[in-house]
């Protein structure tokens, strides 16, 4: 095993651990499920390191993997990861019941749950992860030209549910530079 490979993975892990864990926490009911999804996601990245893109494309790639891992969990055929036992225990203890540091207001979350799965998904990636259409396309495996109108419609539907209350921009999800462009077609 080359040390170069390990160094690359350590950098990837350090740069994106919080984001991947946050992605998983926001989409699961239990801390241990989020820990499992994070472990599985980085395990995939380790095994397929040669296919992980460079630079700004890394995070959408990891989100795409995490999305599929979570889909497996929801389908009920997940296997408890043999990795990350300590993370699972620590997260179960550390996870607050409530927090002010959340990505959006509770009423917006409630409204989003009334949207279709595809509308929810595209909005979550935009509002929670701060992804722009190009990055959302990467995560979902669809083209940017398809994401744009989809995002626009989803936002419009959410606004209708909120009674024309402006959709809040969401809490900046990470310390990385905000990627969302002003354009939100």
């Amino acid at each position, binding site marked *: 095993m080359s040390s170069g490979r390990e160094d690359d*993975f*350590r950098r990837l*892990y350090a740069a994106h*651990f*919080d984001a991947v*864990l*946050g992605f998983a*926490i926001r989409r*699961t*009911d239990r*801390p241990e499920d*989020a820990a499992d999804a994070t*472990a*599985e996601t*980085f*395990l995939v990245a*380790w*095994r*397929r*390191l040669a296919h992980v893109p460079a630079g700004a494309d890394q995070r959408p790639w990891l989100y795409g*993997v995490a999305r*599929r891992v979570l*889909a497996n969990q*929801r*389908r009920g*055929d997940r*296997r408890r990861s043999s*990795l*990350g036992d300590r*993370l*699972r225990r*620590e*997260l179960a203890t*550390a*996870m*607050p019941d409530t927090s002010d540091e*959340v*990505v959006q207001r509770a009423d917006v*979350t409630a409204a989003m749950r009334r949207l*279709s*799965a*595809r509308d929810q998904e595209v909005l979550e990636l935009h509002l929670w992860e701060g992804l722009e*259409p190009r990055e959302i396309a990467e995560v979902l*495996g669809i*083209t940017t030209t*398809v994401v*744009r*109108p989809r995002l*626009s*419609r989803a936002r*419009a539907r959410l606004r209708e549910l909120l009674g024309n209350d402006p959709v809040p921009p969401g*809490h*900046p*999800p*990470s*310390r990385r530079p905000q990627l969302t462009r*002003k*354009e*939100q*077609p």
Partner: protein
Amino acid sequence: MNPQLTDDAVAALPLHAGRAELLEEIMQTPVLDDRPLATPDTRRRRGWLAPVAAAAAVAVLAGGTAWWAGARGPDPETAPPVAGGGPATAGAPADAYRAVLDAEGWRVEDVYDDAKQDTGDIGYSKDGASLEVDWYPAAGYDSRYDDRRHITDPPSDGSPVDLLGLPSSMWAYSADDHTVIRPVENGHFLEVRGSGLTEQQYVALLGQLRLVDADGFEAALPEGYVTTSERRGQIDEMLDGIAQVAKPLLPAGMDRSSITSDQTDPYHLGADVTGQVACAWVGQFAEATRAGDEFAAQRAVGVMETSYRWPVLKQMDARGDWPEWIWSMADEMTAGQVPPGWRQSCAD
């Protein structure tokens, strides 16, 4: 339910030992396979046998039935190369690569048809459930198929489904969220995703899809969508409304006939039209600013400031955020700034 913590809040959780231990655990696992995913061998494992019939009806076949090769795979000498983007043969006319739904009570929610990129989608809804049909050029088939294989762990070729006469693959994101990819036929392939539907409901609905050509697609759209014959008139109507307040409508040397669109949805048609007008003026502003041409720059700013009164944008504002983007560029220009990223956004 986990609280929806921000990444900063996640970073502040006391997880240092667990985080470090996981990293080491992962790096101690063997690297089993780091080959590219889309190898010819991988794709061939999909193993379709010849379609039994070209009937449009959809039938989910129980695993291990006669034509589904399942785990064993077909005889490579006799199996047609359906997977991997190879040509399939349901016998649909060459230009009938879009699909529409003929099911009672299902309503068209959105339409996006991009002739330039050869792709599009149509979304339907009924009682909280939704069905989305996407069509793409054949070139994207392999990567799309490979992506969907990884919905399952370990990656799989999904469940066999006959969609519109071709053996296709179905995967479940959850118990009520499924997707199917249909192999390439006549240079295009379909993906159909259903949400809020059980597998049985979803598969039944797939059986009510119908392949259509461009004319058939337009004919299947409800009232309010713009047909090919109406499109030029609609574009001119939008431009006339803009020209009422934007003087001149377009920068010198640019003719209104250059403003075109393929869109059938009035919202997307409006986005195409206003985007082309606005981008023309932003382009002039950027060039004038670079060249120090104060007059040309001010003219561009003046026209863009009128965008708050463009009738088409006011109509679109209730449905989506496209107008916000145009107005934000106008605001930047008023402040003397070339809108950052405008060139990329306008190119998209």
